[in-house]
């Protein structure tokens, strides 16, 4: 992972290490997600609102987006071992 985030000078070393580990696990989990979840996650990271995502993905009901996002979140959490932070 040569592109790992640099250590944040504001965080202590332990937090830096935790953040690196979490980023590693998150990256592996994102790669393992399905196409729809990856697309949804990408649009969210780009700063889109749910209504914008609804329009971009061509979905009629906003509740569908909520449901997809909820499922994708659970899937991502499963892929990360049930916890965002390691060792919690």
């Amino acid at each position, binding site marked *: 992972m040569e592109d790992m*985030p640099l250590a944040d000078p504001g965080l202590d070393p332990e937090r830096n290490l935790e*953040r690196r580990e979490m980023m590693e696990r*998150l990256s592996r989990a994102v790669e393992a997600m399905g196409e729809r979840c990856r697309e949804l996650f*990408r649009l*969210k990271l*780009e*700063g889109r609102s*749910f209504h914008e995502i609804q329009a971009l993905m061509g979905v009629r009901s906003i509740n569908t987006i909520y449901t997809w996002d909820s499922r994708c*979140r659970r899937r991502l959490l499963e892929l990360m071992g049930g916890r965002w932070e390691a060792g919690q």
Partner: protein
Amino acid sequence: MKPQDVEKLLGGYATETLTEAERKALLEAALANQELFDALAEEEALRELLSDSRCRRQLLALLGAKPEPVYRRFLAWLGRPAAWGALAGSAAAVVLLAGIVMRVHRPAMEPARTPARPAEVAPAPAVPQRQEGAKPSRSEGKRARPGPKTKVTARRAAPPLPEPPPPEKKGPSRQPVAIAEAERADMTAEARPAPTQERAAATVAPPPSAPADRLALVQPRPMAQPAPDARALYYEPPRVLAPGEPGAAGFLRSSKPPLERRAASVQTIRATLPPLGLRYAILKNGAEASAGDLRVGDRVALSVEANHAGYVYLLRRDPAGAWMLVCPPAGEQIAVKPRTPLRLPPTGSLPAREQPGEEKLLLVFSRVALPPDPGALAARDVWRRPLVKSERHETYVVDPPSIPGSRLHAEITLTYR
């Protein structure tokens, strides 16, 4: 939005995808649902990671997104509430810095004006020249009062005072501080300031060694705000407390030990609703009475009102010390509406006492319906002590804003004679 759909917003929390209305709905639902609350607090770790722009860019690169142009990223950053806070804070800091710099450089301009002052001051016909023995005006008398430095308050906005005579003509009781300043500082600018500044210099005894000190001395001290009592908090409308604002701190009410890293997220979650509050009165034979004014055989009930929608429960301690549920009856719940009085028990009264003594009651007010288990209802955190205020026959019990919770306990002691 349906309540079951609100939980689906959880995925948008960490990525800051939610609109303000969605976020508010999620936080309100979390305060009423412990599981959702725990999950929301867990999301804080992911939100913290994703708030790092570098992490976001790496994830976007992983997901095959093209890197956004800088202006797009800037606009996206502006769309976040925190960005506006940062901009406002920066602007405030710049304004404050500019004000300090201007005040620092202002004395440097004084020498240019000083030579003109004697000509301006001495022959001024509108300026009443104070002769020796003349009674100073009331304002001058106040100004000339010797002693420790005085706070400069809003009176500085009053019309400018007449120019005083040069220092050597002044009597010993008038502006001794100004003379001391001139001698000590040996600065002509300080000895002959402008009227408003002279007034400030006279009331503030020692000359500031640095301009920043003068600024600190002339700043009025903010008055301490009295802490709100239970009654005030009971009637206070809901408002959002900013993180860091007194009263915004909260504890995670969870089976897991509270973590400092999650406490900050809990602050925002808990700060969107008012603290739970109850107002109750003792009813003796149908009329309001005090808890200590009861006699054996009285028919006692409670008149209860809540400041928030929720559910109430009334428990009574039996002679063995265990809590027993008085109401609601098994299988039922008593829902309360905000500011709507309710009688407990709904019908009849508490079991009549046959002997004098004390009887302990416990009112429990919850935002959500709870299982009617007396032991679980009576369980509370010992560090959460509600605020209590009694007025005549009414008592207000409110969860303190500093540690709001999802459940309020009000202990009542009835004394029967």
